[in-house]
């Protein structure tokens, strides 16, 4: 048995009205660091590779839900530097297929209680996600999707033109090519402050004894007789009973250290933020005649994005054709944003799977677990991904919301292809 680790970090202040009042009166000098920047021990029960949203959530639920606290999270950079800080912060559970809906709806329910659960302000804002339709067949498709959602107990409302106008009167309803006919609205969807998700999970895990180790890159896996026994890192070898990979765009690289080839390609997606303006856009709005989605942050910046660039990439930056395409979509939808300046844009690395859906499963190596394939939709899934992955690691059986996300579904033909695009990752 590995020795059990510290039971928690007493230095961390719990947030409450009382603590806030006390700090306000004493000049805010009493706040302590929110999590420990740990050095690696020689051995752990579980090593989670990847200190992004999913890895940190996995460690949090392992310690909180399953009582496994002798855990290390290894991050090659610093936490929150990857996709958890690079997305457009949208959360929703408006999926179509039976394999997907339970996971994303579990995630939505976890978002709804997350701030109380981990005692941290993640600015969860259920301001609604509105997908516009511009043609009759698209209306039929959205009606079908809304019905599928409601059959699974998820909220969905099909709006006509007037219904959309009541929410977003500023849209370009009478565009000659793509007039807006209505939309599918999920009121419980919205946005969450993504950095706070990383920090909140890190804080919750760290306070229960999880070691969060930054600037620690995994360089090899130690496998004996088909069983994982540890990892080699830039900070030395670490023994582990179980090793869990949650490394998004780096999945193929890390998995190859264990001799695995996966149905994954790494791609890049770009996101954009404009200069801050007064409140304009009430929720999340997506353009149905192209690929464009937009919301407005509390600071006033418009946060938007579109398609992935579409070619394999590990560069964390994209190219201009997609910038142009995204901006064209935005102008078609709301021409009045044409004079707003874009302040920043950036890229994130996607683990595009061959059917557009994730994988949460064991691997052919005993004790080695895989969480990947989130494509461009991983942020909204962060809580459920962490909970289901923690369940799998702790109990060696899939969580009931994640039974479909098997690694062998490609060989078996049991694909979960929301778009029906086939094994061509850049089309998902």
């Amino acid at each position, binding site marked *: 048995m590995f020795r059990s680790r510290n039971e928690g970090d007493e230095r961390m202040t719990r947030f409450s009205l009382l603590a806030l009042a006390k700090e306000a009166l004493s000049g805010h000098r009493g706040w302590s660091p929110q999590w420990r920047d740990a050095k690696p021990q020689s051995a752990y029960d579980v090593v989670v590779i990847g200190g992004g949203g999913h890895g940190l959530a996995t460690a949090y639920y392992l310690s909180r839900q399953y009582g496994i606290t002798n855990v290390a999270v290894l991050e090659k950079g610093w936490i929150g530097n990857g996709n958890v800080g690079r997305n457009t912060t949208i959360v929703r559970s408006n999926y179509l297929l039976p394999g997907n809906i339970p996971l994303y709806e579990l995630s939505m329910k976890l978002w709804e209680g997350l701030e109380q659960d981990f005692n941290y302000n993640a600015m969860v804002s259920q301001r609604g996600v509105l997908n516009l339709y511009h043609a009759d067949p698209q209306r039929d498709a959205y009606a079908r999707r809304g019905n599928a959602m409601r059959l699974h107990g998820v909220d969905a409302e099909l709006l006509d033109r007037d219904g959309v106008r009541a929410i977003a009167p500023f849209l370009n309803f009478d565009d000659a090519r793509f007039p807006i006919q209505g939309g599918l609205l999920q009121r419980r969807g919205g946005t969450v402050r993504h950095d706070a998700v990383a920090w909140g999970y890190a804080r919750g895990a760290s306070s229960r004894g999880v070691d969060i180790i930054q600037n620690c890159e995994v360089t090899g896996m130690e496998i004996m007789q088909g069983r994982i026994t540890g990892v080699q890192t830039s900070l030395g070898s670490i023994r582990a009973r179980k090793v869990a990979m949650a490394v998004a765009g780096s999945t193929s690289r890390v998995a190859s250290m264990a001799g695995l080839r996966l*149905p994954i390609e790494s791609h890049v997606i770009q996101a954009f933020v404009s200069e801050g303006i007064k409140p304009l856009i009430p929720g999340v709005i997506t353009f149905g005649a192209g690929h464009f989605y937009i919301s407005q942050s509390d600071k006033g910046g418009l946060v938007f994005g579109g398609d992935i660039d579409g070619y394999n990439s590990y560069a964390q930056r994209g190219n201009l054709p997609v910038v142009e395409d995204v901006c064209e979509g935005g102008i078609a939808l709301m021409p009045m944003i044409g004079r707003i300046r874009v302040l920043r844009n950036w890229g994130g690395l996607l683990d595009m799977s061959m059917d557009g859906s994730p994988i949460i499963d064991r691997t052919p190596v005993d004790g080695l677990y895989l969480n990947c394939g989130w494509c461009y939709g991983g942020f909204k899934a962060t809580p459920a991904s962490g909970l289901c992955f923690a369940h799998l690691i702790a109990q060696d059986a899939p969580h009931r919301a994640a039974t479909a996300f098997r690694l062998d579904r490609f060989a078996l033909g049991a694909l979960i292809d929301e778009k029906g695009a086939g094994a061509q990752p850049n089309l998902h």
Partner: protein
Amino acid sequence: MRIPCPYCGSRDLSEFAYHGDATPKRPDPSAENAPELFYEYVYLRENPAGPIRELWYHASGCRSWLIVTRDTRTHAIAGAVLAMETAS
């Protein structure tokens, strides 16, 4: 990103369509383990971080299929040849 098309010269990325890694070769359907071979051909990828040989189609140009050698870490392109010239 600009791609050096052997016919058209250096052209903008937006003229091309992407078809991914050029390495997987369609297996023999009459092979005994054809289902396994096709699973690997259709779904499994090396996904290298570094140089990759990949298929691009010059859709808004000469409509040739190209094999482009590109570094996925930097997007730097080392060269492009016509796919039909490399077909066996």
